[in-house]
């Protein structure tokens, strides 16, 4: 794990830069030429996800003893950022797999669970999912109604989860699901690892989404789904913690996706503004246009620094809840703005599905919603500030 001095926090190390360059090259040559088609046909590109796994992208931040590279959270953020610069669907596939499926197993799993689920995940051999959100509510984690009851030495899970990433494609191997478990007269949440293919676990058809067309998002139905005791992840009754603790890291991932998307949008807008002429000059010469680009450049750099800083704190083992929330809040809103200004600068061409511009516009909006809405993040920050319970 790389250690970071206060000075290096503003500059990537040689290793981090080398990882970034490799992922950039991969994204530009293996993803960019097909991203438009996958978007149009809502195709989940399992082959490319597998290739990324072979490169080692899923294991960047996991320890070497569990199949990872041990390169740290900053390197992981850089990888996700580079993917999102080209294709947000691929970025979320990697980001969600690593931070909301792999990380809970690392933090709360038994040695056996880590060997069975984390090692192949880190090596890119399979994907995992985490199912907390339900049709009846996402932000309010504790309001979930999915239940797990004891029967014949097994847990029997019943309920429905909504908007779950990576659960039903050919690489999906397991889902971590939160469910109410009756203990001591109460019904706190517990988390269970359910392998794909378990009787009674039924991933539904993929949703038709506004964006992220090439990512895999489904409703999951649990219908008398039986799992053994070994399926319990973390302590009984502590499922909310199993979900919420890794979410801080997940937010760094979404912040990195936001920075990458915004960077990609800025590059598209800058290139177009230099090339497109109106009234006898490139539109970039117009103050109305180049001020927009200068503002975006500044905001993206600020978002990137917030993101790397949150990641550096995580890597150093320091508290980072507030920093991750702030990075995700700010970066996702910058991403939405960058995607919108990119489209505006492209004029009518920006509205036509022939370039990446509309795709970036559609892909941006989820960033202010997933893994904590902007509203919830403001609440998290306010609570860290001691302003509310």
């Amino acid at each position, binding site marked *: 794990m790389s250690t970071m001095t206060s000075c290096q926090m503003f500059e990537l190390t*040689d*290793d981090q830069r*080398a*990882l970034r*360059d*490799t*992922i950039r*090259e*991969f994204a530009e040559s293996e993803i960019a030429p097909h991203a438009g088609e996958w978007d149009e046909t809502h195709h989940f590109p399992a082959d490319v996800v597998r290739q990324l796994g*072979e*490169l*080692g*992208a899923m*294991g*960047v931040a996991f320890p070497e003893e569990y199949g990872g*590279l041990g*390169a740290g959270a900053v390197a992981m953020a850089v990888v996700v950022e580079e993917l999102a610069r080209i294709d947000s669907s691929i970025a979320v596939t990697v980001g969600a797999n690593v931070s909301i499926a792999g990380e809970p197993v690392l933090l709360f799993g038994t040695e056996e669970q880590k060997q069975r689920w984390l090692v192949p995940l880190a090596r890119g051999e399979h994907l995992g999912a985490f199912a907390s959100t339900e049709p009846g509510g996402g932000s309010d984690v504790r309001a979930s109604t999915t239940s797990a009851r004891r029967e014949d030495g097994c847990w029997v899970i019943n309920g429905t989860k909504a908007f779950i990433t990576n659960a039903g494609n050919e690489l999906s191997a397991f889902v971590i699901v939160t469910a109410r478990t009756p203990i001591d007269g109460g019904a706190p949440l517990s988390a269970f690892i359910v392998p794909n293919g378990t009787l009674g676990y039924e991933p539904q058809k993929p949703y038709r989404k506004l964006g992220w067309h090439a990512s895999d998002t489904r409703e999951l139905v649990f219908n008398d789904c039986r799992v053994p005791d070994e399926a319990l992840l973390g302590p009984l009754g502590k499922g909310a913690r199993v979900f919420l603790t890794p979410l801080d890291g997940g937010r760094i991932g979404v912040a990195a996706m936001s920075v990458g998307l915004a960077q990609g949008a800025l590059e598209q807008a800058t290139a177009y503004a230099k090339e497109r002429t109106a009234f006898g000059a490139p539109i970039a010469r117009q103050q109305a246009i180049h001020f927009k680009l200068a503002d975006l450049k500044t905001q993206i750099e600020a978002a990137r620094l917030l993101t790397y800083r949150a990641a550096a704190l995580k890597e150093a083992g320091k508290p980072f809840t507030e920093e991750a929330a702030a990075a995700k809040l700010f970066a996702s809103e910058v991403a939405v703005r960058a995607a919108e200004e990119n489209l505006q600068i492209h004029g009518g061409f920006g509205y036509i599905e022939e370039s990446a511009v509309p795709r970036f516009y559609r892909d941006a909006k989820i960033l202010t919603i997933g893994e904590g809405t902007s509203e919830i993040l403001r609440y998290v920050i306010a609570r860290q500030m001691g302003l509310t319970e």
Partner: protein
Amino acid sequence: MALNSVVLVKQVPDMNAVKIDRASGKPVMGGQNVVSSYDAYAIEEAIKLKEAHGGEVTVISLGAPGAKDVITRALAMGADRGVLVTVPDPNALDTLAVAQVLAKQLQAMTFDLLLAGQGSDDYEDNHVGPQVAELLGLPLVSNVNSVEVAEGGHHLTLQRDTEDGRQILEVDTPVLLTAISGLNEPRYPSLKGIMGAKKKPIEQVAADVEPAADRITWSDPVAPERTVTGTIVQGVPAADAAKQLVGWLKEQKLI
């Protein structure tokens, strides 16, 4: 049976990033230094042979002091060690001088197989591989697109495409072969490979031959002027436009 390979690699500017300055017509290099594309096939082949038959892969590059990027890339892909032979200004050398410097270095090394790209992305002279073979007295097989190793021996079956067909050659090592596209699909270095690369040795040695004075003089490259000629028929109904076009084609005696 292990097969030890040495691969000649050249660091070149990323040709995809070269822009032509509109005012002067001169090329402006941008972006990073990359492995010359044919060399990537040579590196990949050496690594594949190592994986299949054992042995060591050494990459050797002639470049300016510190120009280690492409060696590091080859090490990240799976090569074992690198040698950077430095000259103050590599672009001041002609191809024969480059071959002489490399041959001198290679004389002190042992290997079964010497691989090079067919040519380099920047100058595309296609000289260095053949010249090195000649200077070392090695057989040369150029433009190779398939390599097979006979079982248990240092005997290779090589394939090359010619203008009117395909040649299949059998050679004993040591041999120098130059690689072209179609030989293989160069891998991306894995992220683990990248992190491991810096632990692998890169030896930097100053060239110990005096490069000969210029045998070739270069004039500054300038992009040819683009003259756009063409006639566009616009703003008239289709039938009239067609008539105009047919009239014009007849005028030019094209139909």
